[in-house]
């Protein structure tokens, strides 16, 4: 209380405010911006690759550049675009949906963002130091080892290591938030499905990103300090990397797709005016998928030659995932069944997700058939399959989430006409690009090839695929135009609940005050907001009297820790440079001091936050409502 209102009155610049914020809603916006920038960057790379593959024996890109593009496209899309975009929604929505004032550790939340951001930056600057990583996003050794890959791989290893730490601490934060910070009456089985998937995803991150961290550490030790983990001549094993990578890599798919499932499970009920069909089954299906996701990693390695017993076991486990996924698909269908559907952009994206995801899912089951996977493996069939999952699944989910939560986040809706145009451009483009790639794989086009020879019957299909990619690109351009256009022309949303939705985030005023809820709400049912609209007086009952509200102080330390790790990581990479500008030890030392110095400051300087006094809370509440 002694430090009361200190940061309320400061009039520092907007920039400073964003650099030091620990507010989950502002961090969500930061995640959204960072994720979108990375998404656009990796998307442009994809377009370059499609131009290269447009015709046979094209020489738009060299093999080396092409390999750098595939690596960066995959790495950025998964680690630096999809993950932060999902975190953006988790950050913004989860505390609101469970009726909390903020996440459990607001400081750690900011820390997670900045570490992620600087890690991503480290991967990205590789272009300026002799080229990006070029061994694919999977970075199989020995191709990624010191002998066969240049400095780019060091940026990959250290950048991902750092951004992984950020992702990990954010995940821990979400787990604690969801378990400890729920409003009174919000039992686990009353939580919206997005919170459930957020929780499960966070748990997966904790158990999947740590093996990745270990694996990346091994690769780093091999590359920089002469470790022998992956060198067969010294007793090492090249296949070990693949095991470690896929123990992480397979759950990673579910880390990204489960929150997308969550978004769909929010949007479809909202625009069907119906509660989610089979809520309990949905929750358990999510848990089963998460559990199984750790049991199937070998299906990425069927052609490694591990033996028929292992391959069979993992094939069956992989097929088993089809069952809980099927449950989800049918539950969504039956949520729509008998409802009153409104088709705006959010609902278009969410509903079309269902059949699209089925197409990706069935090829997934087909890939699980080991002997036939010997054909599919590492061909364009696989490329098509996982793009059906990540674009047709995750990206459609994210788009639905964007249109759905946009009014709550920014106080105005996105333009519907442009939205629908975007949807159709993107959706048609998506199918044009990827459907045909199934066939390309079957007629003998391996994945990750920078060109193909004339006369193999691949020209037309590749051209079609490229045209589709440009349609998708056009869709994204329309989205960007929409964001700018709507910011200037859309009218402010004055109501709490522009969609007539069901969950708690719509019970707060728009824009959401920094403390979210003036009074913690009392939850009486699943879909609490809908319940109060029907059975109550249209507003949430409160669980506590209106009082002063305790808030955390902003801090620049998360930014500093991220920066310190960036400097440290760069110093480590300099160890492998032929002519570093200065001794790497100095850079490593500086990074180390900045990071641990900031941590020390944090641990020694007690920060009890501040309180918003009661009259001020009342004033804000009056203003917004």
């Amino acid at each position, binding site marked *: 209380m002694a430090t009361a209102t200190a940061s309320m009155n400061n009039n520092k610049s907007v920039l400073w405010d964003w650099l030091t914020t620990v507010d989950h809603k502002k961090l969500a916006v930061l995640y959204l911006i960072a994720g979108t920038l990375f998404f656009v960057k990796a998307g442009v790379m994809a377009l370059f690759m499609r131009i290269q593959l447009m015709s046979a024996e094209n020489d738009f890109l060299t093999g080396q550049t092409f390999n750098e593009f595939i690596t960066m496209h995959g790495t950025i899309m998964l680690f630096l675009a999809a993950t932060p975009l999902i975190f953006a929604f988790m950050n913004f929505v989860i505390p609101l949906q469970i009726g909390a004032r903020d996440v459990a550790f607001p400081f750690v939340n900011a820390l997670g963002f900045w570490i992620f951001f600087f890690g991503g930056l480290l991967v990205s600057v590789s272009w300026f130091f002799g080229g990006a990583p070029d061994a694919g996003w999977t970075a199989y050794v020995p191709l990624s080892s010191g002998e066969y890959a240049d400095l780019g791989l060091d940026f990959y290893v250290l950048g991902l290591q750092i951004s992984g730490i950020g992702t990990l601490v954010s995940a821990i934060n979400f787990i*604690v938030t969801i378990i400890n910070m729920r409003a009174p009456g919000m039992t686990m089985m009353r939580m919206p499905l997005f919170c459930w998937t957020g929780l499960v995803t966070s748990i997966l991150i904790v158990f999947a990103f740590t093996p990745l961290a*270990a694996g990346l550490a091994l690769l780093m030790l091999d590359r920089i300090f002469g*470790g022998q983990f992956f060198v067969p001549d010294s007793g090492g094993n090249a296949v070990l990397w693949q095991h470690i990578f896929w123990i992480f890599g397979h759950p990673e798919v579910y880390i990204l797709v489960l929150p997308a499932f969550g978004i769909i499970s929010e949007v479809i009920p909202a625009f069907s005016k119906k509660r989610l069909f089979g809520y309990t089954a949905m929750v358990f299906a999510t848990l089963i998928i998460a559990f199984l996701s750790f049991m199937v990693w070998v299906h990425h390695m069927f052609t490694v030659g591990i033996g028929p017993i292992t391959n069979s076991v993992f094939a069956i486990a992989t097929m088993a995932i089809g069952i809980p996924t099927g449950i989800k698909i049918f539950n969504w269908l039956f949520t729509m069944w008998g409802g009153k559907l409104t088709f705006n952009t959010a609902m278009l994206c969410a509903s079309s997700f269902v059949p699209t995801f089925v197409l990706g899912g069935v090829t997934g089951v087909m890939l699980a058939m080991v002997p036939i996977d010997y054909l599919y493996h590492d061909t364009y069939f696989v490329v098509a399959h996982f793009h059906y999952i990540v674009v047709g699944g995750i990206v459609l989910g994210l788009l639905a989430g964007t249109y759905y939560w946009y009014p709550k986040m920014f106080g105005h809706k996105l333009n519907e006409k442009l939205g629908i145009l975007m949807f159709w451009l993107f959706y048609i483009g998506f199918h044009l690009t990827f459907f045909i790639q199934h066939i390309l794989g079957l007629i003998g086009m391996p994945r990750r090839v920078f060109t193909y020879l004339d006369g193999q019957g691949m020209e037309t299909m590749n051209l079609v695929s490229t045209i589709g990619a440009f349609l998708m690109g056009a869709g994204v351009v329309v989205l960007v135009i929409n964001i700018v256009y709507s910011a200037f022309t859309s009218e402010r949303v004055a109501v709490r609940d522009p969609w007539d939705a069901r969950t708690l985030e719509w019970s707060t005023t728009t824009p959401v005050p920094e403390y979210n809820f003036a009074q913690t709400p009392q939850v009486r049912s699943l879909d609490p907001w809908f319940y109060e609209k029907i059975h109550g007086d249209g507003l949430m009952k409160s669980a506590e009297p209106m009082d002063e509200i305790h808030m955390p102080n902003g801090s620049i330390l998360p930014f500093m820790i991220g920066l310190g790790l960036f400097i440290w990581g760069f110093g480590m990479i300099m160890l492998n440079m032929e002519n570093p500008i200065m001794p790497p030890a100095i850079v490593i030392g500086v990074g180390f001091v900045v990071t641990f110095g900031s941590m020390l400051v944090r641990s020694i300087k007690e920060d009890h936050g501040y309180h918003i006094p009661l009259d001020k809370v009342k004033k804000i509440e009056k203003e917004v409502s």
Partner: protein
Amino acid sequence: MSDSVDVSKGLPSNPEKATLEGKNKFLGFWVFLGGETIMFATFFGTFLGLKEGTAAGPTADELFSLPLVFIMTMLLLTSSLTSVLAMFSMKKNNFKNMMILTAITVVLGLGFLGFEIYEFYEYLHHGLGYTTSAFASSFYTLVGLHGAHVVFGLSWFITLMIRYSRTGGITLTNAPKFYLASLYWHFIDVVWVFIFTVVYLMSIGGA
């Protein structure tokens, strides 16, 4: 919400979990340890996969000396015990005892660390460099990572002791911090038990 706990009648029985902040830290830390477990498991897996890969370098049989490792184990186990006792003192609101027991923990931990450095130094002289073989790399990485955890745990204890030596009492703010440091120390201890079994006993006994 941290001020919702009434401390006028003395500390509650579990000062580390009395506030929501304390509870959050407690849970968050357990989750973190879950992640750490998986990370160590990966390194254990790596070691098990590569321990036969000695190439031309020395093998585990030729190097490991059980008596030395036994002393190290005893040191670390005892330090874990003193750490438990420190937490008992915390719950009894005996600040001084807690500080003394924590100090003993730190001394024992430093002893462990000394032996570990000596051990690595010896192996180095027997021709087991980091780059000698896959076995060497995986051994040094696994045991070295554990050593790094010991160093971090010790720095944590020392920082806390310096930071709160002037406070002179247990509060709802520092109780969770001491508790978590102690939890971390136990974790390090458990990992060592596995290292002792998997790395040392199994390498000598097996094969």
